[in-house]
């Protein structure tokens, strides 16, 4: 039991160190500032677009109210889509060099020769990044949802579950790039993470178009690509959760509306992906020469 106590303390210390690093290296502040800028632009855009539509329509009939809802839904979902992409990119950027960088500079040598397990360092970094990314996601997504609600009274459905799925997608990226960082150089790892994400992303499009054309090979290809890197398919799952039923009747292009609906199993798959890749990272780092 004492050992468990030590492990918890070490993981906590490394997580705290990781958070402090993003703060000290001004990553946190730049991200916060840019996030506020993003919300500002989103808010202004939302306001003026809605004002334009409501002004033109006179905002009297019931169909106008429905149009408002459709536009508000579209803008909110677009905002969340961009945020999802942004936080995934930040997850990769933050974590890609976090381990390999310390290995290359030998900063890690003084850490792992302490009376701790090597895997505790990886677990601590992972946890630190999870906290940062979750808070950042909450700030940006919460901002977008609040702006939409405040201006139009419109709120997406299943917000906690949808945000949870977005976070899960971000965690799959985090685990992937942490795992890569235990063996690859920073640049190789970054390239790997982004290319896998891009592959899954384009695979997602192939799947959607394949579904429209009822081309099974294209759909299978898309599914295979989302197994390699499930962040994008988890976003699609989230976007289905968010969307009210009225969206089914309107033609809005992918990626905001999903033709080929991901199976519920993607959620379980996403969880397994994030956990197993993290465990592999813990194992891989414990076994390498430094």
């Amino acid at each position, binding site marked *: 039991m004492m050992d468990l106590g030590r492990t918890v*303390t070490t993981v906590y*210390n490394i997580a705290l160190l990781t958070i402090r690093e993003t703060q000290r290296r001004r990553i946190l502040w730049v991200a916060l500032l840019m996030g506020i800028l993003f919300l500002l632009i989103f808010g202004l855009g939302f306001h003026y677009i809605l004002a334009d539509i409501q002004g033109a329509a006179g905002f009297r009939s019931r169909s106008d109210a429905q149009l408002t809802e459709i536009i508000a839904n579209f803008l909110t979902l677009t905002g969340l889509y961009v945020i999802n992409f942004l936080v995934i990119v930040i997850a990769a950027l933050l974590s890609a060099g976090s381990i390999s960088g310390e290995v290359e500079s*030998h900063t890690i*040598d*003084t850490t792992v*020769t302490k*009376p701790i397990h090597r895997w505790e360092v990886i677990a601590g970094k992972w946890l630190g990044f999870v906290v940062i990314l979750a808070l950042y996601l909450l700030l940006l997504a919460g901002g977008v949802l609040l702006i939409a609600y405040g201006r139009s009274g419109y709120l997406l459905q299943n917000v906690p579950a949808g945000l949870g799925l977005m976070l899960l997608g971000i965690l799959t990226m985090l685990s992937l790039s942490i795992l890569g960082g235990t063996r690859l150089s920073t640049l190789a790892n970054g390239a790997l993470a982004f290319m896998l994400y891009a592959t899954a992303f384009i695979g997602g499009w192939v799947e959607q178009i394949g579904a429209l054309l009822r081309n099974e090979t294209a759909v299978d290809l898309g599914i295979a690509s989302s197994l390699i890197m499930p962040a994008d398919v988890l976003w699609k799952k989230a976007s289905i959760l968010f969307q009210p039923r009225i969206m089914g009747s309107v033609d809005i292009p992918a990626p905001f509306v999903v033709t080929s609906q991901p199976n519920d199993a993607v959620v379980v798959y996403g969880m397994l992906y994030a956990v197993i890749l993290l465990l592999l990272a813990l194992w891989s780092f414990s076994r390498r*020469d*430094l």
Partner: protein
Amino acid sequence: MPQSPVIHTENLRKEFGPKVAVADLTLQVEEGEIFGFLGPNGAGKTTSMKMLLGLTAPTSGAATLLGQPLGDRRARARIGFLPEHFRFHEWLTAAEFLDLHGRLYGMEQSARRQVIPHLLELVGLADRAGTRLSAFSKGMLQRIGLAQALLNEPKLVFLDEPTSGLDPLGRRLVRSIINGLRQEGTAVFLNSHLLSEIELTCDRVAFIREGKILRVTSLAQLDDEDVHVRLRVGAPDASLVDGLQQFGSNIQLESGDGLGLVTLNVSHERSLPQIAQWLVSEGYNLYELSPQRLSLEERFIQIIGDRLTE
């Protein structure tokens, strides 16, 4: 109770693919001993140290550290390590850096609070406690790294080229810290190619080349061995040279101002009084008998060879 060695290795070997970094490391370092690890660049010094510290897994062989197998965390709680590349989390202040590593050692807050100011004082950085490491010079980083290696009152400290970034004052500081450790009974494993440093601090040294230990010896023993002797003797004759053959080799005789200037190499210091006795008993007048010891650098070249590797 017999002292158990703080480091004990048997046939440790490390291969990186086809390249053999360490061929056979077999050595023992005793409690409280200052042990120097000498060898040219690329001899396998750093790889050897990394194996002992658990940073790199040996390909074969066995070793214990403080009586525990390599990588054991109980042993690691009692060792300190200053790496050759002293790169640390540079966005931490000096005090935060020491506090972090104290936490990683599992030290209680009260213990950290007590020891950190003392260590900052010891390495001459007390007035820089609140300065970020990014603003530190190379020498300051090496000194704060040394403080980090002493946080847990270790039984064994690994220092990999601890004076590489230091000026003469800094080197003197490191020497005095090592001497302090000796007094406290802490063993030090010192990797260095600065022979003057080794000469001034170490009890025993190992010479390593191409991943093999060529010799392990105490510095006092090295001093006794292979002494170069210079004699000035009155009225030298042929039997002088013949008679000296029994004590040493490479005997040279030069005559001048009526005295003979003889040089010879003897294998051990204890020959010196014997030579003096023999000369007197044979009726020679002895004007000078001066032993000249080889410097560690000369020893190094004698043992390691002067061939540049790689």
